[in-house]
């Protein structure tokens, strides 16, 4: 039996007396694609942020490849593997290629390898024509594509996407959907918080419903 890429056991989180997550049980298979759905404010983003180590849960356990993860003192090594992309991604005030290379530098990848990987990622995301544009001048959709390239280049163990197509115009949304489809086809394990029907209905996408603080079967 293969080990799950990620398991959550009894994850809880309260916000000012409100139980937002009430014992999340979840198992994600390696290479699987998952759409995490649910009403606004139900805790989708919070759950993704807990998995990425951006905030601690109040209780519960997480396992990555079968090993228990300390969610209070989140392991630094895991930050290179479980990558979270904001709904409105932030691009640093530097060039596009430096943005894409950021995680590789943080991981201390050799400069020569970095260059090859960044060029591949630029090509993968179709942002080559934007390379000389300042990140702050990019549209929301273009920023999303650069952010996806920046995450993909790290070859993540699990990619956490928070509403990647929200507030995008139809063209930008189409481009983002294409990249998400490519990610899934490439066998990257992805967990996507979304409402987008097209993401939910993608081939191979498994739908998860977060309701009343628990993941309900769909």
């Amino acid at each position, binding site marked *: 039996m293969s080990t799950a890429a990620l398991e959550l056991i009894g994850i809880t989180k309260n916000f000012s007396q409100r139980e937002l997550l009430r014992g999340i049980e979840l198992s994600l298979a390696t290479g699987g694609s998952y759409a995490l759905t649910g009403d606004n404010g139900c805790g989708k983003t919070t759950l993704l942020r807990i998995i*990425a*180590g*951006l905030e601690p849960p109040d209780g519960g356990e997480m396992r990555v490849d079968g090993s228990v993860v300390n969610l209070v003192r989140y392991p*630094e090594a895991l*930050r*290179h593997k479980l*990558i*979270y*992309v*904001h709904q*409105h*991604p*932030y691009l*640093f*005030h530097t060039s596009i290629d430096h943005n894409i290379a*950021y*995680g590789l530098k*943080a*991981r201390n990848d050799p400069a020569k390898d970095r260059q090859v990987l960044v060029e591949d990622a630029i090509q993968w995301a179709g942002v080559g024509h934007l390379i000389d544009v300042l990140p702050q001048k990019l549209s929301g959709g273009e920023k999303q594509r650069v952010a996806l390239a*920046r*995450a993909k280049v*790290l070859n993540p163990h699990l990619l956490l996407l928070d509403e990647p197509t929200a507030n995008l115009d139809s063209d930008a949304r189409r481009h983002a959907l294409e990249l998400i489809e490519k990610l899934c086809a490439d066998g990257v394990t992805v967990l996507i918080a979304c409402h987008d029907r097209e993401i939910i209905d993608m081939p191979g996408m498994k739908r998860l419903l977060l309701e009343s603080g628990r993941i309900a079967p769909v």
Partner: protein
Amino acid sequence: MELLEPTREAFRLLFTGDAGLWRIIMTSLVCSVTALVLIAPPAVALGFLITKVVFPGRRALVVLVQALLSFPTVVIGLVIYMLLSRQGPLGFLKLLFTPEAIIVGYMVIAFPVLVVFTLSAVQGADPRVYETARSLGANRWRAALTTLFEVRFGVMAAVFNGFGRVVSEVGCAIMVGGNIEGLTRNIPTAIALETSKGEFAQGIALGFVLIVLALGVNIALSVLQGEGGMK
């Protein structure tokens, strides 16, 4: 009061490269810049930590640092004088009435300016900056440097404001430096002395240099910011 003749004399002193005058200017610049180079890293780091790390007494620390902003520099000079005087706990260092004593004073004066400006800059940073860096695998140190880079114009403003505060400071410099000609006499202390002697030419020349420095740092900040500083 006749102003024209002293002003003409002031410019003559400046542009003929009067050694005494330029030594005073260099003392000011060396003390100010050295103090900032030494105090900026810990002050900027503290400004960042106060914003990003929750710890008991954080609010009290912010209030204390803000209060230090309005501390009279002459009182800071008095405290440093007592510490460095022969009977003081740091008297063995024999720093009193040396440029090093002025540098220590300037570091104390610039410290709250740098902390408060950095704190304000980091507070104004987009919270996604630090999170994005962390979620891309950056350790805390790299993520902090990334955040400071993203608010670099605010940090630069902190340093330039710190420079503006110390380069024009007179009370502390006189108390701990002693205004010794050729050693610790700097622009503001020299202006105070020359004016008290009725020697306006050197005072005007040095005042002109101070104004040029103040304008210069502001122009430099504006040029460095370019469009990036504008929202």
